Structure formats: structure tokens, C-alpha cells
């Protein structure tokens, strides 16, 4: 799941995870961000780089590239001691901290591992669905591009081999779906349309679906809105403010509808809408509402 910053990717990823777990699939939500938020949404303390059960059949995992790098090194060298030596080398730390695309590559590598039926550590149980709360559009695309780039740079050797695996995994529509999250506003819609094209051109992947988050209710029919407009100052000051507030809400909902229409015309994939939640911050009840909506619409 990717999309413009601030559209609610994490919330939607959590709701999709919940919907997946509700349908009986063992599901994990892998969050690619510095600040861990998924566990908090489920009312649990931050758990970091490990699988944590947050609801029945639903786990969360906070994907920190530093730890993904360490895990990858241990796995490559098959020796904690050698990995430790390399990891404590300042020069190696500098190199890997800035090596272009390396964070993205090892992050994707861990996602791939989480999604395997046969886990790296035999004691870990497999997941049937892995929902990835990926970075926003530009960085998200960079992450999806990184395996191909590394496969090309490294040509042969372990990096090339793994990067090749990940690249095929991402581009195989049977294993991976890229879903965009958007808001029904001008710029998020533009960025989503852009994303579909760039996914095609830069990664060789087709967008699977768009989820439009926080869609306002269309409460008033055209006739009703006209009736409100025609009041034109009737009633006391309280009534006038109430009616003005209703008209603003109505025009926002109408504007959203036209943006969703524009989005539907521009992308050739399903566009699913989720309602705006009237709570100050999304809580577990809110997530359940969104999950139920997704189950109904997916």
C-alpha cells in the first residue's frame, strides 16, 4: 500500500489487515516507517522489529531497515560473529547507511521473507497475507525499483540473486498487488493517477486497486441543498449558522464526489471508497468499521 503522504495509508493498511484476519487468513501488517503506529492503533505498546500479535490471527511488524540489514548480513554470512565484525566496522556502517537503495532492498527482502510459506527461521509460522504499509509514492516507488537496480548493478553473487528473486516476486501479479491509498482531493488524485503510470514504466507492475479514504457522507440531495440555499437569511442567527455549516459540508462532499469521478475515469482499476470517521483519532472501533466496509466492497 502506497500513496501520497497524509492520506491515511497506515489506517487503511490496519483495516485491510483486520479484514484479512476476519476472513480467516493468518495476516501480518508490515509497517515501513520510523515511527511505529500499527501496534498503537490496536491499543498495544510498540514492539519493534518482531512479529507481535495485535488481534486474533493478525500480527504486526515494524520494519526498521537497520535491523533488516543486520538480519540480512547474519543470513548472508551464516555467522553472527562475522556479521558483528562487519556491523561494528565504521566504514561498513557509513557505506551501508548511505549506499543508495540498500535500505529499500533489505526492507523488501524482509517483506519477501515474511510472505514465504517456508520461513527463514523454521519456528516462525507462515502468513497467508502480508499487508505492507509502504512509504509514500516517491519513496514507495524507489523501494519497488530497488531489486531491479541491484540485480543490474551486482550482476552475479548473492545480492544479484536475491534482488532477482524480489523483483520477480513484486512483478508477479499472483503474489503481489500494489494498492494506492488516496483522498478525494485534487492533489492526492493527481498523484494516484501519476502513480499508476510510473508503476507501469518504472517497475513493470500494474496498479491493483485504489482505496479512497475519508469520503464524506453525501447527506443532502440536490433538492435539499437548493432548499437550504433558498432560505437566504431566514431564521435566527443560530439557524443561519447551522444552515451555512450544512451547505459548506455539502459542497465539500460534492467536490469529493467530482474528484472520485475524475479518478475513476483516469485509472482502469477498481476504486473503493471508505467513509470519513467522525472520531478525533481512529481507534479500534473505527478500524472495525473500515474493515467491515472493505469486506463488503472487496
Amino acid at each position, binding site marked *: 500500500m502506497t500513496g501520497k*503522504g497524509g492520506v491515511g495509508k497506515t489506517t487503511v493498511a490496519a483495516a485491510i489487515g483486520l479484514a484479512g484476519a476476519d476472513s480467516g487468513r493468518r495476516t501480518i501488517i508490515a509497517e515501513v516507517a520510523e515511527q511505529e503506529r500499527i501496534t498503537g492503533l490496536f491499543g498495544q505498546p510498540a514492539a519493534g522489529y518482531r512479529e507481535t500479535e495485535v488481534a486474533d490471527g493478525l500480527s504486526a511488524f515494524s520494519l526498521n531497515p537497520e535491523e533488516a540489514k543486520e538480519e540480512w548480513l547474519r543470513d548472508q554470512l551464516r555467522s553472527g560473529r562475522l556479521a558483528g565484525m562487519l556491523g561494528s566496522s565504521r566504514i561498513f556502517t557509513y557505506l551501508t547507511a548511505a549506499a543508495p537503495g540498500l535500505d529499500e532492498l533489505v526492507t523488501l527482502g524482509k517483506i519477501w521473507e515474511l510472505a514465504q510459506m517456508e520461513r527463514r527461521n523454521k519456528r516462525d509460522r507462515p502468513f497467508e497475507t502480508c499487508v505492507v504499509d509502504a512509504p509514500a509514492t516517491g519513496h514507495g516507488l524507489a523501494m519497488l525499483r530497488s531489486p531491479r537496480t541491484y540485480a543490474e548493478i551486482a550482476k552475479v553473487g548473492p545480492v544479484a540473486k536475491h534482488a532477482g528473486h524480489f523483483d520477480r516476486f513484486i512483478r508477479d501479479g499472483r503474489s503481489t498487488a500494489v494498492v494506492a491509498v488516496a483522498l478525494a482531493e485534487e492533489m492526492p488524485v493527481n498523484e494516484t493517477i501519476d502513480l499508476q503510470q510510473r508503476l507501469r514504466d518504472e517497475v513493470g507492475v500494474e496498479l491493483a486497486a485504489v482505496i479512497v479514504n475519508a469520503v464524506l457522507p453525501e447527506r443532502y440531495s440536490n433538492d435539499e441543498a437548493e432548499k437550504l440555499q433558498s*432560505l437566504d437569511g431566514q431564521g435566527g442567527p443560530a439557524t443561519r449558522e447551522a444552515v451555512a455549516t450544512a451547505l459548506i459540508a455539502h459542497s465539500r462532499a460534492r467536490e469529493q464526489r467530482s474528484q472520485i469521478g475524475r479518478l475513476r475515469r483516469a485509472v482502469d482499476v477498481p476504486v473503493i471508497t471508505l467513509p470519513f470517521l*467522525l472520531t478525533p483519532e481512529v481507534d479500534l472501533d473505527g478500524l472495525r468499521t473500515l474493515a467491515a466496509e472493505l469486506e463488503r466492497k472487496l
Partner: protein
Amino acid sequence: MSRANGVGDLIGRKQVVICAGSGGVGKTTTSAAIAAGMADRGLKTAVLTIDPARRLANSLGLTELGNEEARVDLPGSSGELWAMMLDAKRTFDELVDTYAPDEQTRDAVLSNPIYRQLSNAVAGSQEYMAMEKLHELHQEGRYDLLVLDTPPSRNALDFLEAPRRLSRFIDSRSLRFFQGGSKLGLGIMGKGTGVLFSIMKRATGVDLLRDLSDFFNAFGGMTEGFAERARRVEALLGDSRTTFLLVTSPREASIQEAEWFAKRLREEDLPFGGVIVNRVREEIDTRPSPQLDTELTGLLGDKLGGKVSQTLGEQVALAEVDAHNMADLKRRLGRKPTLSVPELPGDVHDLEGLRALNEHLF
């Protein structure tokens, strides 16, 4: 229209404004609005953005911007507004061209696969090059005010960290390591380095190491130039002619971020101008009440009157949340100014919209 604590007062006579903030809070739009507003106040301003989603282009009603500043037609303005969408790769290439001792070195770097990936990578080099371009334009001194819209990220301070990581990558220590490494672990390297190199080889494969090694060998003569430049860029960030503004939203998570950001700027000894909070839902004086309901249903009928009452209740509650979060923000930031911009009726994506926004910003 001007208020005592409009954004013009936050900026004062500063020459560089850096707008930071996490994604989706209206940072690009705010940057463009500030540059347009200061141009309307007689200054020659330029707004720099570096944005794969081309949002500034949207904000300015332009379809394309290049790596050069383009003048934006601002009817009736006493100043000038210029805008630039930064091409990170091109900026990086130009720097290599500047610092390469000869053509052969330049071509070796430009064609190296590691360099190509480095200069194309979204994370890191965009931030680095944004700072570079800012520094370059400031040096040239053609503008009264430069407004930098920092690259989109989840973390408002990424634009400070990423360039540092990148300049460590190309610093002289990596260089010394790989100059030995060109012989792939043999010869002049000390024993420790040789062992390290052979472990790395196991982890990455030999081609990748060779490319890295070639890259650092070619880059060798330029590291000093880059390092010197990086120091000047850092100096500009901490300069008294620079100010940082945090753009944010009235959500709880954004408020926490703002506090953290202010703390980090203090730690880094960087000049923090204040916070701009976008899309704050305006407070509504009227509260739902039985008398109001009676009047509404009397005028509109049960059904429509009930709907209006419901909408009012919802909007009052939402505005209260924002007011509460704004109060919290002000308390946490102490004396730092906060500017609140109300949610506007329509999206802002053209000059008219920017000017409407500026009614509230200035």
C-alpha cells in the same frame, strides 16, 4: 490584509526560508504561497521544490518546471515570483562536472553504476541536492528571498539527516578503504581492512564491490570539494539569515511531531521561526439545542431539519478537536509563534487559491 503575527513577521528580513513537515500537510502549497505573498510585498522571491509528484507545478498552475528557475506570472504584484522544480540527478551531475579534475575522471564517475544509482536514488540525494541548489542560488544573490520546500518524507527532519549520511558515504575514509580495495583485499591494505573486505565480498558479491571500489577511486579527487561544499551548506542552514518553518496539520500525531521537531532544531542550534498549522477547522459558535432543532424543523421539515442539526453537531465536534489540539500545540511550543490557517472551501491548486490562502497566512 496583515495581522500582528502573520507569516511576514515570522520571516522578517530573512533571506532563506526552509519549510519542513511530513507528507500531506500542505508543505508545497504553503511554500509557494509564502513566496507569492512576499513577492506581492515587493520582493523578488524564488520557491524551490523537489517533488516527484509535481505538486508545486500544480500549485502554480504550471504543467512543467525545469532545473532552472522560471518566472511565474503574478498579475498585479509589485515583486517577482520565480519557481523551480529541482532535478536532483542533473544537479549532482553538474557538481561532478564542477569538481572533477579532468574529463576522464568526470566520465568515469558519471558512467559508474554506483554513481548512477546514487544520483537517481530518491532517498538521500534529493535532500542533498536540494540543499546544494539552495546554497548555489543564495551564493548567486539574485533573489531577496528563497523558499525551500523540503522533499516529501514521513519524518520532518529527513532532509537534514539524509545529506549527512550521503556526505559520509563519499567522504575520504570510504575512499581510503576502497583505494586499497581496488586490489580486492590484497596488497597495501592493513590486515584488518583486508579481512573486512573479504567478509564484505561474501555478503555482497564481487561485482558490487568492484563497482564501489571503482566509484571511490574515480571520485577520489573530488571528495575534498564535496566536503567543503557540504560544510558551507551546513553553515547556511545555521545562518542568521535563514529560518525554518514547520508546516503541519492539527492532528494529534502532527502536534507531537511539531514538538519533537522544535526540540531537534534547538539541539542542532538551527534557527526555528515557527509553526504553520494548515486546514484547521474553524470554530462554530452555534451549538445544537432543542430550540434550534424546533426552528430548523419548522423551516425545513423534520427530515431536512434533522439532517442540518446532525451536520452541525458533527462539525462543532470536529472543530473542537482542532481547537483543543491547537491549544495543546501552543502550550508545548512555549513562545514560538504558531499560525493557524483555516480549512478553505476548495482545494488550493492555482494562483488564485494561493492568494486566498495568503489572506490567512499574512
